[in-house]
């Protein structure tokens, strides 16, 4: 590396604040920057990291946006030149970045490129679920109907172009089932559906949403296809020896339908431990239920059972035979069998959705059918329908009407609509070519779908379709009003439940299983509360018009008693989640201190600073990293003479390999900042015998002591996190990875939202206004 006095100074004292202000030299010119900072490794035949600037002109970066956008990103994160090489001063970094960005933005202004997502985009399984909900007022168990989606770039809505025969088969079968449920055709035989309650759910306290005076239990949406009699069977949890859990005594259970008690049942657990244990066989009830999606549940009436006279503070988790057994019985399953004596369904929410308020009469049967099929198809296809669109469903209706009657005819037409490629896929077509136009605005109906799938994860409602139909959806006032309306609608909870849950890996909580010997406190209750906290904070930041930066610095969070006790925060009682101001000394503030994130980034028996660091780099900092080289060794837990190494030493050892050092210098410090939290996010001062060392530095020089100050260090350059959040939103909104052509628009949005301190809601709105969201390139 070249060495002159300024360079030596910079190397000895690399961070701006320690340079005397008066001595600051003029920033390097772009050409000088490349020569001095880049060329040794990326020019003159040297192509470190398979990257060369040799043939590229720094004066005209717009000619090679892919390469130069990567340079911008590397410089923005201060990843290049590497930390142990000579580095330009801060003004030179900023000047170089400003030059490149200005040039790249100008080139993009001259030739905008909105990109081209797939022509066919299959609804994801969750979108399908929500589409059925909105189309038919039906809550179906979609996991039993469709295979899971493949995840790409962290989201389920990227790899959605294919339609294998298996998938088509499943769509056909799903259409058959949904058709039956929606119309209310009684099944050939009574159907058995089992609602299972997670076995690691502690059922000692009252649950949110259940009647007061109850404990434990569960409730779930269930579709009753027709009016009729149904049998309900409640069964209790058993230990591995087959015995019903809990102490002997008499217990009362309430069977609940839509929150009201349908029947009170009694169960007595005998003292005799030798007898076969099937006392819960009596927990059966039959009742007449009206058709529709209803909430079926059961819970224990508080009291009952002999409470122990003295006992130490019980463990929070109580479901484990040996370590923390259940003191009282708990619900294992709710089985619904039926219908018996089906009475058909003259009326149900789904039928009202299909037929409107005018159900069929003998006189206007054909007109009713036409109206119903036309309405269903318009909503399902999310656009006005043509006679050609209706030909198939109508044919199915007519054929079936002849042999099986009116209802069966409508059901057959509905099946055809649900199996149609126009429902299964979002299809975007190219309008006739216009000379010289490299791209076009997507049609108003396509735009309506882009909006509803982004903001709701579901199909457009009638109002949004009407706006598209009037042709004024693109008028700024109408467009903004619709976006506002969609965001204010409760369906926008999808942004927290689907977008944020995937971005932040909350969905993985469903499958984490911390080692129950090490983490006695972990149960399903905690798993659910963890996820809820983060989703509620995200939803709150979105709804209240707060800055996206608040995700990392908010002084309040959302807790129920379970999670508050996990955090050792006093004064939170009961199952209801509420906003809680974080007391000083609670160690909690911001996403990086949420138990949800700390848990999904850990192994089942220990924390992983590397996984956590990688999570932060990918999801908070958005720094570009290459995957590790093949066949890197695992961490070495022990020294050659067999002593247990501290995690810090293990990782340090790993970093000695030159192939690993580059990225791990970036990954590891933020990961270690979270080491005060164990693998389920509880505070600790030691990891085994080793004291926690959590201090470190970011590549841009910001230093930190722990998780809270790491977040402060990240927020010292707020645009870094704002950009990451924005890019994740764009990927999810567009259903594709971002390219260099998208970056000028990313920067435009960041400029537009900076004055408002990057309000999350503004970021979302700006995404909907953006060039790639509104337009599409020609093939």
């Amino acid at each position, binding site marked *: 590396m070249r060495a002159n006095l300024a360079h030596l100074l910079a190397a000895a004292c690399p961070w701006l604040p320690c340079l005397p202000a008066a001595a600051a030299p003029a920033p390097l010119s772009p050409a000088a920057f490349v020569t001095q900072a880049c060329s040794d490794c990326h020019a003159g035949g040297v192509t470190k990291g398979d990257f060369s600037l040799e043939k590229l002109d720094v004066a005209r970066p717009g000619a090679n946006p892919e390469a130069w956008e990567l340079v911008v990103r590397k410089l923005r994160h201060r990843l290049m030149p590497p930390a142990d090489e000579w580095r330009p001063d801060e003004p030179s970094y900023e000047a170089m970045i400003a030059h490149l960005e200005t040039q790249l933005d100008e080139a993009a202004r001259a030739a905008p490129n909105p990109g081209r997502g797939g022509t066919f985009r299959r609804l994801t399984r969750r979108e399908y679920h929500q589409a059925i909900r909105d189309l038919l007022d039906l809550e179906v168990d979609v996991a039993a109907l469709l295979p899971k989606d493949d995840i790409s770039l962290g989201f389920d809505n990227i790899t959605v172009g294919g339609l294998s025969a298996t998938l088509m088969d499943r769509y056909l079968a799903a259409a058959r089932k949904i058709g039956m449920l929606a119309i209310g055709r009684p099944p050939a035989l009574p159907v058995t559906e089992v609602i299972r*309650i997670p076995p690691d759910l502690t059922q000692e306290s009252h649950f949110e949403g259940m009647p007061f005076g109850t404990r434990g239990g569960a409730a779930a949406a269930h579709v009753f296809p027709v009016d009729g009699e149904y049998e309900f069977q409640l069964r209790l949890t058993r230990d591995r020896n087959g015995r019903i859990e809990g102490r002997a005594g008499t217990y009362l259970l309430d069977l609940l339908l839509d929150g009201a008690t349908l029947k009170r049942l009694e169960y007595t657990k005998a003292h005799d431990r030798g007898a076969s244990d099937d006392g819960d066989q009596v927990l059966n009830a039959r009742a007449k239920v009206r058709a529709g999606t209803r909430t079926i549940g059961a819970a224990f009436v508080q009291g009952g059972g002999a409470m122990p006279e003295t006992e130490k503070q019980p463990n929070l988790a109580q479901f484990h035979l040996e370590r923390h057994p259940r003191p009282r019985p708990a619900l294992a399953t709710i089985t619904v069998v039926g219908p018996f004596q089906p009475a058909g369904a003259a009326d149900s929410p789904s039928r009202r959705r299909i037929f409107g308020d005018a159900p069929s009469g003998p006189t206007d049967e054909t007109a009713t059918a036409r109206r119903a099929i036309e309405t269903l198809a318009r909503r399902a296809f999310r656009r006005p329908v043509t006679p050609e669109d209706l030909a198939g469903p109508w044919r199915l209706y007519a054929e079936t009407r002849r042999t099986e009657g009116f209802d069966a005819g409508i059901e057959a037409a509905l099946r055809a609509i649900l199996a149609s490629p126009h429902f299964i896929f979002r299809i975007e077509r190219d309008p006739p070519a216009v000379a010289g136009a490299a791209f076009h605005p997507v049609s108003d109906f396509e735009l309506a779908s882009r909006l509803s799938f982004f903001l709701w994860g579901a199909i457009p409602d009638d109002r949004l379709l009407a706006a598209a139909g009037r042709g004024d959806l693109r008028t700024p006032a109408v467009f903004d009003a619709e976006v506002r309306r969609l965001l204010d609608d409760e369906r926008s909870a999808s942004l927290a439940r689907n977008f944020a849950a995937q971005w932040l890996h909350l969905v993985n909580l469903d499958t984490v299983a911390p080692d129950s010997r090490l983490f006695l406190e972990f149960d399903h209750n905690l798993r659910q509360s963890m996820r809820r906290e983060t989703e509620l904070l995200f939803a709150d930041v979105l709804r209240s018009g707060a800055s996206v930066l608040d995700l990392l610095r908010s002084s309040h969070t959302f807790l129920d008693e379970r999670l508050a006790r996990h955090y050792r925060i006093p004064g939170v009682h009961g199952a209801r989640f509420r906003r809680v101001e974080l007391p000083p000394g609670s160690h909690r503030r911001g996403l990086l201190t949420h138990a949800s994130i700390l848990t999904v980034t850990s192994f089942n028996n220990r924390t992983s600073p590397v996984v956590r660091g990688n999570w932060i780099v990918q999801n908070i900092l958005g720094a570009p990293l290459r995957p590790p080289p093949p066949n890197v060794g695992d961490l070495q837990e022990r020294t050659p003479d067999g002593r247990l190494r501290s995690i810090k030493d293990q990782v340090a050892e790993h970093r000695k390999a030159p192939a690993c050092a580059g990225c791990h210098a970036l990954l590891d410090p933020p990961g270690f900042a979270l080491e005060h939290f164990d693998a389920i996010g509880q505070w600790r001062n030691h990891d085994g015998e080793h004291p926690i060392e959590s201090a470190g530095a970011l590549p841009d020089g910001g230093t930190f002591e722990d998780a809270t100050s790491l977040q402060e260090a990240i927020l010292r350059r707020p645009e870094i996190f704002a950009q990451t959040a924005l890019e994740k939103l764009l990927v999810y909104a567009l259903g594709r990875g971002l390219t260099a052509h998208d970056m000028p628009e990313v920067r435009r949005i960041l400029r537009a939202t900076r004055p408002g301190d990057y309000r999350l809601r503004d970021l979302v709105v700006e995404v909907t206004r953006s060039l790639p969201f509104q337009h599409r390139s020609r093939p």
Partner: protein
Amino acid sequence: MIITKKALSRRTFLRGAGAAVALPLLDSMLPAMTPLARTAAKPVPRLSYVYLPMGTNLPLWLPAEQGRLTRFSPILESLTPHLRAITVISNLDLKNAYSAGNHATANSAFLSAARAKMTEGSDFELATTIDQVAARHLGGDSLLPSLEVAMDLNSITGNCDNGYACVYQNNLSWANARTPLPPEAHPRVVFERLFGTGESPAARRAEFRKDASILDWVREDLRRLERDLGVADRSTVSDYLESVREVERRVQNAERRISDSPAPDSDRPDGVPAAFGDHAKLMFDLQVLALRGDVTRVMTFQLARELSNRSYPEIGVAEGHHTSSHHANNPVKVANLTRINTFHVSLFGHYLDRLAATPDGAGTLLDHTLILCGSGMGNPDVHNHTDLPILLAGGAAGAHRGGRHIRYAQPTPLANLHLTMMRQLGVPLGSFSDSTGVLGELNEKVL
């Protein structure tokens, strides 16, 4: 607690429910779905693949003897009753599985022997897998050309392998380079795909006719779309059309095969057993049923996913599988890995037990099926794809004899075994991926 059923499917509870998940019940309905008449003289060959993730502890997998086998190794010991039906083949390799994402590509190369295009996006690319090559020839008039099953109900995000989209890790079977065939893990869904939902024969016929009519219209609709689209999009539509035609064939076959006695509905498996072993056995049992009813002749089963960090408390392994697999020769971790491998193999043993206990023509299903069981990874501690743990089992209708351990002196492509198996089953195939020839040793008579 308000729950959605979806969130529950994984952690379910075996006992207590009125619903049955145990399988013996399913046998009772078999007379209702008698397979097409088959002469004892000409048994139909069947093909089955079982994937074990993350290699094995090889020293305890490999039998001590080579050539004729009298004793299995510790990991394989539970298979002893079927020793005569099993060939252990060692020192096969998968050169195309070496990548930055060794777990993803161990899975994707296992049946393709192909290199996966490195991408996290939707532009993934692999190759047609060997089971799909076979399905085109062996499918005959069975209801499903192939059946893909697995054990994982939930998709996970964020931890798919370095730079490789999750499709590579999730899917063993690929219809072509761009079409992975997603496996099904829910026993009831598998059951209903195999045997329907239990209406009367007349009602089922009516349902199939409606499906056929709907598919007709879907095809018309796609054709209509095709006319309006550009060249690139048109090829997408023709892929879709191919899938639709495939489903039409299935529907036609299904309709033709409806027998006049309805399959009873009440005993279909309702839930997902809580214990991994019970779930796996149920999935194996469903595969046996599928073969027995001649619903399909080609199956793939992913017993667990690569990178799975499932712990196995039921066999005393509290540490995750992936963590244990990076054992660095730490004896505790090696022991854990061995236990997991042994447990997985014992589940495969259950499958062989059931196949051997199921009469088929003049013999048993085991006599007429060819089964490849193994992993796309050798030593998981170093992520290699050499000296893969591979078992070949079953009589393949006379084409395969076991009781041997064939060890190659030089690493030999797994593709050679794929090719050899096709020859054994009479599937015409000149070469497959990086194959260099057939494994002649497999055809040698046993001493």
